Structures are given as structure tokens and as C-alpha cells.
């Protein structure tokens, strides 16, 4: 699933490790989400959206 995670993260000068720590997951997970290899669970998606003060649909883009 496409997402704006990388763009939003770099706007704030956060590394993947920074974002991973704030989201309570591993850096590997953040990298996998950013590259579209892994879709997060709903709780994690909500958690990430909350970190950027956005709605989920503003962070994750429907491929269809």
C-alpha cells in the first residue's frame, strides 16, 4: 500500500530509527512499510497517523 510515511518523516528530519522508536516498532518495520513491502495493522496505522496528526486515509493511499 502506498503511503506518505517517508515524505512526512523527512519533513521532520526524523530517521527511520527515530520514527520506529516513537511508534514502538522496529526500524525494519518502518522501512518495510515505507517501501510498500508490508502493510501495518490497524492499531499501528492509527498510531502512525496520530504521530503525524493526520487521518489514516491522509497517510495511507488506496492503491485501487
Amino acid at each position: 500500500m502506498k503511503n506518505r510515511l517517508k515524505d512526512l518523516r523527512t519533513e521532520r528530519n526524523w530517521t527511520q530509527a527515530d520514527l520506529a522508536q516513537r511508534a514502538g516498532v522496529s526500524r525494519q518495520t518502518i522501512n518495510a512499510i515505507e517501501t510498500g513491502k508490508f502493510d501495518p495493522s490497524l492499531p499501528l496505522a492509527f498510531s502512525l497517523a496520530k504521530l503525524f496528526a493526520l487521518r489514516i486515509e491522509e497517510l495511507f493511499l488506496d492503491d485501487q
Partner: protein
Amino acid sequence: MKARNEIKATARLALWTLAWVATLALASFPSLWDSQPVASWAAVAASLAVGIGMIVAHARLLREMDELQRKIMLDALAISLGAGFVGGMAYVVADAADLIAFDADAGMFPVLLGIVYLIAYAVGNLRYR
């Protein structure tokens, strides 16, 4: 906090695994239990009990992992279980049909499961690198 819990759970699993291997080695040391079936049964029971502790520790580690790592581990466990069934049955059937020179040994199954699990886990991690 979550990373710390995961490290603790990993350390606990490592300790339980070492304990299980030690009890298993003790139980399978034949000269220690010659003519002492009660002691031998006690050693086997101890190995079983510690093995159950190891399984519980593994389940706890799975709960502490983050979702991607949990997915990688569960995928590897599924593949190794399937390989154990399919490969194991092929091995038994080959033995029954006299296709292999030696008798099928039950000790091969944990080895097969372990090797397949390690490969599947490594491939899973590479896939999501």
C-alpha cells in the same frame, strides 16, 4: 520499553532452550541410568517439563515482538511445520519401500525442522530488509 521487553523475552527463551538441551542430554545419557528405570523416567519427565517451559517462553517472545518480526517468525514456523510433515512422511515412506539403505531415525525430524526454520527465518528477514 517494547524493545527492552523483547530483549528480556529473548534472553528468557535462550535460557529455557539451554536448560531443555541440558535435560535432554542428561536423559539420553545411557550409562547414567543403567538399571534405574525410575531415575531414567524422572530424567525424561524433567526434560519434558523444561521443554514445556521453553514452549511457553517462545509464545511469550512472539507476543513481545513487533508485528513484522512476528509475521516473519510465524511464516518460518509454518514453513518448517509443513516441511516436517511432507519431508518427514517422504522419509518414512522411502524407508518402508526400502529405498534408503538405513532405517528411518526419529531424531532426524527435529534436525530437519530446525534447519528449515533457520533458512525460512533468514529468507524472511532478507525479504523485508
